[in-house]
């Protein structure tokens, strides 16, 4: 075995979202460190993947050992202002269903949090809700 490839894990998470939102009705999605100029009064999604603390799972130093790698996907759903929250929640539900208690390529997704409505959207000019999903991956050395 080898140390966890964080980009492989990230690809598992993000490709799942990109594939879903590329199907009708299509919703633009943007990931970390990507330029994006949203169209006013449109719906779009921002996906931010980050890794947190790792912890020991098994004995053994750099061989025959395991770590638990924990991470968080923060997904911001933006939609038009002044038309209620329904359209936003439709997108959020698609995202929530995508990760809810799913195991993909060794990545365990927990039950999602949200969608939570944010009082102040960033960028402004949209209704913003947020879905967060914690996940973990068992790294085998």
């Amino acid at each position, binding site marked *: 075995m080898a140390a966890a490839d964080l980009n492989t894990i990230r690809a598992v998470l993000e490709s799942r979202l990109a594939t879903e939102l590329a199907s009708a009705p299509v919703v633009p999605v943007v990931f970390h460190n990507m330029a994006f100029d949203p169209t006013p009064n449109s719906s779009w999604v921002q996906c931010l993947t980050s890794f947190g603390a790792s912890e020991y*799972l*098994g*004995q*053994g130093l750099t061989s*025959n*050992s*395991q770590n638990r790698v924990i991470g968080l996907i923060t997904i911001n759903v933006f939609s038009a202002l002044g038309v209620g929250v329904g359209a936003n929640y439709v997108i959020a539900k698609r995202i929530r269903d995508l990760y809810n208690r799913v195991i993909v390529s060794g990545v365990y997704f*927990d039950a999602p949090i949200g969608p939570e409505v944010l009082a102040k959207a960033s960028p402004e000019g949209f209704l913003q809700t947020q879905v967060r999903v914690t996940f973990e991956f*068992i790294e085998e050395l």
Partner: protein
Amino acid sequence: MATIRGEQGSVQFETGGGSLATVVGTRSWSLTITKETYETTDHGDTFRNFVGGLISGEGTVELVYDPDATGQAAFIEDVVKVNDATDASFELFTTGSTSGTDSVAFAGIITDAEITSTVGELDVVTCSFVTSGTITSNLE
């Protein structure tokens, strides 16, 4: 001074038909060695006297369950071996996995295996064992 942390340790096991091999996925182990004492106090003594007697050991090994992890299945299934002739060997390492170094070695019997499956947590197996015969301490 050289302190040791748990992640440096390991457990090796063989069930009677092979050679010792690391049980992958071991999260912790414990071993309690007990020596009986027999009283040898004489009438008229002011203080009690004892002599050391029979020595025995017991302990646990905790595994993060993985059916594909090397050595786990044989270890766990030793508890259901019938007419167990105490042919299993253990070597518990505080650090490393070099036979006869920083370890305690003994023959033993797995007497208990508790498998725990809880929502949102990794499945864990805790096996208890008793030693049988000589306990060799290499904790130099």
